[in-house]
């Protein structure tokens, strides 16, 4: 990272190779649109390049800093949106070995994605960091610029809302 601060493009290329998938993954989980996630990932690394000098490894890990940039960009963008149809919920591939199990898993994932679409961006962000990226509660709170208690509350509400949405979809066949 110190080499990136010195504006060395070779080091920056290595950094992007390592961390670009992470940025795209988190952005896509929240915005549910691969093209928009790509834009966010690119913009995030433009910011990493231009603000590299302000990064302090004593304060946070690089990944925490990157997550924070990605989340800020994502929340900024989604705040401007007024309508997001549920049909845009992306499909998540499953790697199950058997066809029937895969079908069941696909249905579950489809249900989950539709239920996720009903969450707020911050709730999706909390789930993405804690469950998908495997961050600890403390790390995820830091990346979201929240206190540990606030993150706990957000994650709890996210999981509760998700379960309620799943129930609603199962009862009515669609989420309203």
């Amino acid at each position, binding site marked *: 990272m110190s080499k990136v601060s010195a504006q060395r*493009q070779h080091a920056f*290329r290595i950094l*992007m*190779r390592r961390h*670009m*998938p992470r940025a*795209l*993954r988190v952005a*896509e*989980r929240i915005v549910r649109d*691969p093209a928009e*996630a*790509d834009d966010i*990932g*690119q913009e995030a*690394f*433009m910011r990493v*390049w231009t603000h590299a000098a302000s990064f302090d490894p004593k304060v946070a890990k690089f990944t925490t800093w990157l997550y924070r940039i990605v989340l800020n960009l994502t929340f900024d963008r989604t705040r401007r949106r007024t309508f997001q149809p549920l049909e845009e919920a*992306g499909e*998540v*591939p*499953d790697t199950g070995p058997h066809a029937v199990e895969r079908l069941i898993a696909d249905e*579950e*994932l489809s249900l*989950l994605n539709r239920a996720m679409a009903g969450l707020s961006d911050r709730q999706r962000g909390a*789930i993405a960091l804690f*469950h*998908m*990226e*495997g961050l*600890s*509660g403390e790390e995820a709170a830091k990346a979201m610029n929240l206190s*540990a208690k606030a993150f*706990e509350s957000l*994650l*709890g509400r996210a*999981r*509760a809302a*998700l*379960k309620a949405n799943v129930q609603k979809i199962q009862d009515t066949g669609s989420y309203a």
Partner: protein
Amino acid sequence: MTPDQFRELAETWGGDVERWPAATREAARRFAASAEGAAVLAKQGRLDRLLAVAPEIETARADRSSFLVLQRLAAVPPQHRPAWHQRLLRWPALVPAASLACSVMVGVWLAGAMPYVQAPSDAFSVMSGVFDVYAIGYGSVQ
């Protein structure tokens, strides 16, 4: 830890007690050993596994995004080159200028400090000088 507290924590943090806040883990492990605790964790664990599935990001896609970032950086105009008089005021340019100034000052000081001796201009002295030069040029051991 009561069953309700355990359930509440499981609903927030999921089915893996090791990922719960450190302060709650010890008591949670004890409760998790019971049949009731294990059932609560199993239920939440199933949801955890679904939530952990990440969108698949192909390497080619990530590489394309990285390439586009580099393209955008290349399109940013280079930093403004300062004018010649501004460049002169930077310290690398000041080193030779300061050396030259010091040399001039030492030269002026020496010129003022050393005694000025005017050569005599009578005919004998001139001739004597000429022959001395001749002697140095041809007749001397030099």
